[in-house]
């Protein structure tokens, strides 16, 4: 009789593709051992591929179900789940490495934007499961004297994310996520940046200009509003601060505003 540890090691290896002969004596009862093991092999891989497909719905739509399943099986060779849950960990949980995997996946090389599409799917799921914090609204800024606005620093909601691509990533993602028949996207139309926000509990995916992304990234790094605005203006001279702040405030992007001089890193 093998020890429980030996049995489980053989069984696990067999599920991952090894022969089942190391398992010890199995009651076959008219059904060959390998066919019995196939049920477990199929259960494991099908359930994990389904989980990846539900985490990356736009990637699956772009490449089709069969391609996605074959690709996912390759992905699983080196990226089995490390947590006992498949959801809720965003970029660090099961499937979090898929965008990078896709960029090196030869059969997908004709779709060079696929990794960035996967990044938007991943950001969407991260936002969907992200922690709950009450957001501040425009009233919180109304009491600040205009000359002090530049001093404000914001704590961003943990679900706020930006994805920037050399490709028209928002156009590709949106039409494949929402439209019954995806519309054509001109791949030469230039890069796009998306901003994910989660007012209340619904995830929103916005197309934003370079300046808005720069402002958000600056604020998330702890820059004051004035410094983040200067950086955004440098990058994008048509940048409009009012529009950007309206998007962030109505999208629940800020959980806290601090009005105090920055004393510098210590």
């Amino acid at each position, binding site marked *: 009789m093998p020890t429980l540890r030996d049995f489980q*090691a053989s069984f*696990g290896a067999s599920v*991952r593709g090894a022969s089942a002969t190391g*398992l010890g004596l199995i009651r076959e009862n008219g059904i060959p051992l390998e066919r019995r093991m196939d049920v477990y092999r199929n259960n494991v891989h099908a359930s994990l591929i389904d989980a990846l497909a539900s985490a990356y719905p736009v990637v699956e739509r772009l490449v089709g179900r069969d391609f996605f399943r074959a690709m996912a099986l390759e992905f699983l060779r080196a990226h089995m789940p490390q947590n006992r849950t498949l959801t809720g960990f965003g970029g660090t949980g099961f499937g979090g490495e898929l965008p990078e995997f896709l960029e090196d996946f030869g059969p997908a090389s004709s779709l060079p934007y696929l990794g960035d599409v996967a990044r938007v799917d991943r950001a969407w799921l991260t936002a969907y499961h*992200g922690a709950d914090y009450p957001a501040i609204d425009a009233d919180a800024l109304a009491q600040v004297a205009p000359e002090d606005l530049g001093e404000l620093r914001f704590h961003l909601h943990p679900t706020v994310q930006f994805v920037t691509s050399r490709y028209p990533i928002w156009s590709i993602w949106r039409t494949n996520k929402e439209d019954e028949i995806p519309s054509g996207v001109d791949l030469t139309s230039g890069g796009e940046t998306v901003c994910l926000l989660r007012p209340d509990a619904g995830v929103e995916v916005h197309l934003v200009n370079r300046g808005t992304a720069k402002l958000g990234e600056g604020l998330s790094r702890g820059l004051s509003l004035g410094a983040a605005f200067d950086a955004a203006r440098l990058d994008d001279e048509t940048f409009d601060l009012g529009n950007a702040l309206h998007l962030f405030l109505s999208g629940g992007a800020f959980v806290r505003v601090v009005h105090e001089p920055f004393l510098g890193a210590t």
Partner: protein
Amino acid sequence: MTNYPAYRPNPIPTRAGVGLKPVHYAEILESKPLMGWFEVHPENYMGEGGSPHKYLDAIRRDYALSLHGVGMSLGGVDPLDGDHLARFKSLVDRYEPGLVSEHLAWATHDGDFMNDLFPLPLTQEALEVMCEHVDQMQATLNRQILVENPSTYLSLDDDVMSEPEFLHALATKTGCGLLLDVNNVYVSACNHGFDPIAYLDEIDARLIGEIHLAGHAVESIGDVELRIDDHGSQVCSDVWGLFERLIMRVGAKPTLIEWDTNIPAWAVLSHEAERAQMVLDQNDLILGRRHGDANFA
């Protein structure tokens, strides 16, 4: 063995319930259907926040809730995953479920989580591992858990006891209760050639805290059938028959319809629960008459 007190707030009623699926959230909140209770896999609510918790909070306000774990790997030879156990506990603290359950199964290999319910050899060594892990889970949650019999596709010549014997020993040593999945008994009985009626008759009625019913798939291998527990269809007539017979013997128990793949419209799912409820009601009626309950005269 530790005796954990019966869980008082928000108990699961002795009625039919269904597994809660996200596609049905909105309809349930709008129509507030008559439903005994809901069950969820805690693994699906281990994200930090957002929509899943928002809906579960709202549904929890109106209905009793059961947490049915699928990832604890109680039968795994390696120690339980402390992070997973801590997340499980925080869900128990937050949602105060009426019942908490897990499986007679294991699910890891070389640190990888395989997301399935693998079969245990029914040996003394496996019993000791299960007892240690059930003890640890109950002590961490400070409450009794129910352990469910899995569907299995292979069994070992090394088995030294039957599954009912194993489950009874586990319950005796740890004080856990049993979640008796009638469909799993039927699937395993067909796949291994044992008598499902004899299995069910062997289970001590006092240990049964919950019953599961579900549909399964049938796969033909040559001229032999293998039944696969996919929770993807209606409960089959053989399983309804076993359920009716079981309820006649053990009395009404909280009974859950599981439907996790090819998820149907809410009306189809709730109809399955109504059918289970009729079996529970029928039994109450018969017992009431037998006991001369005035309410049934």
